């Protein structure tokens, strides 16, 4: 028996990770896994509001890996995305390799967003949507703000691992009380 297989099974079951994809991520793969994630979320029986938030964070995180992971493949990037059930709701996580230049840019942008309240985030979102995408951005540059707004909270860190830097990006969606 392969003990690592059992370990993987146990880790995923005990931490409530009902979805995980790790490896080369392209838009085609995202299209395909999105259908599965949507079914899984619908089966949780949560409201459209909660499901939309979780799905929205998942898509932004996945597209972030596709566009910015510095481990590139043809038409995408390498990384992992997962969704777990927690005591309070859901946790959506993404991990990918990041370059030193992006690390500075991403860290600065996310720290700014972490310090903002709901009103300030809305303001930041509106300002960004009206202006052209920022330098180095392939999308509208709104993804980080979107995750900050849809999540109940989010965090991020950079970890040195095997001579590379990994970017860990996590968002939580809490279920409404009651």
């Amino acid at each position, binding site marked *: 028996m392969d003990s690592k297989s059992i370990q993987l099974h146990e880790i995923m079951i005990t931490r409530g990770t009902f979805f995980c994809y790790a490896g080369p991520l392209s838009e085609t793969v995202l*299209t395909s896994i999105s259908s599965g994630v949507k079914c899984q979320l619908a089966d949780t029986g949560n*409201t459209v*509001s909660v499901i939309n938030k979780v799905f929205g964070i998942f898509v*932004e995180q996945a597209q972030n890996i596709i566009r910015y992971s510095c481990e590139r493949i043809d038409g995408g990037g390498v990384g992992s995305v997962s969704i777990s059930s927690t005591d309070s709701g859901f946790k959506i996580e993404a991990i990918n390799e990041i370059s030193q230049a992006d690390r500075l840019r991403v860290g600065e942008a996310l720290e700014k967003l972490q310090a903002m309240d709901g009103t300030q985030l809305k303001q930041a*979102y509106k300002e960004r949507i*009206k202006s052209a995408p920022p330098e180095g951005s392939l999308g*509208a540059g*709104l993804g980080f703000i979107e995750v900050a707004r849809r999540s109940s909270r989010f965090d991020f860190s950079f970890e040195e691992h095997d001579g590379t830097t990994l970017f860990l990006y996590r968002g939580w969606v809490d279920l409404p009380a009651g």
Partner: protein
Amino acid sequence: MIIAATNRTPEIIFSASGCTVKGECYPEDITELSKPVMKKLAKDLAQSDAYSINIELHYFNSSSAKFLFDVFEFLDNAASQGKEIEVTWFYRQDDDSMEEAGGEFQEDLENVLFKMTMLN
């Protein structure tokens, strides 16, 4: 003209004086959708004094939000020059993300008549 829905883009049906958008929007490359849509809107609006758009989206990502914003801005400009433009934003009951999104677009429009309608 009809733009068929895909897994990740909405169906868009154009008539002479309006269009209907329904589905989800989180394409790989938003410009593949935005370019033909903006071109069609510009052409149709030039030929009509009144235009109405019905939008029922269940989800859209951040790149698509920028596209929607650009569409509304374009419509608002046209409305400021005397066109009668109406947008109806449909959202499902309990879908506060889409209700909020519609409300935020509405806040920034001065000349377009923007209506919010909840679906049961």
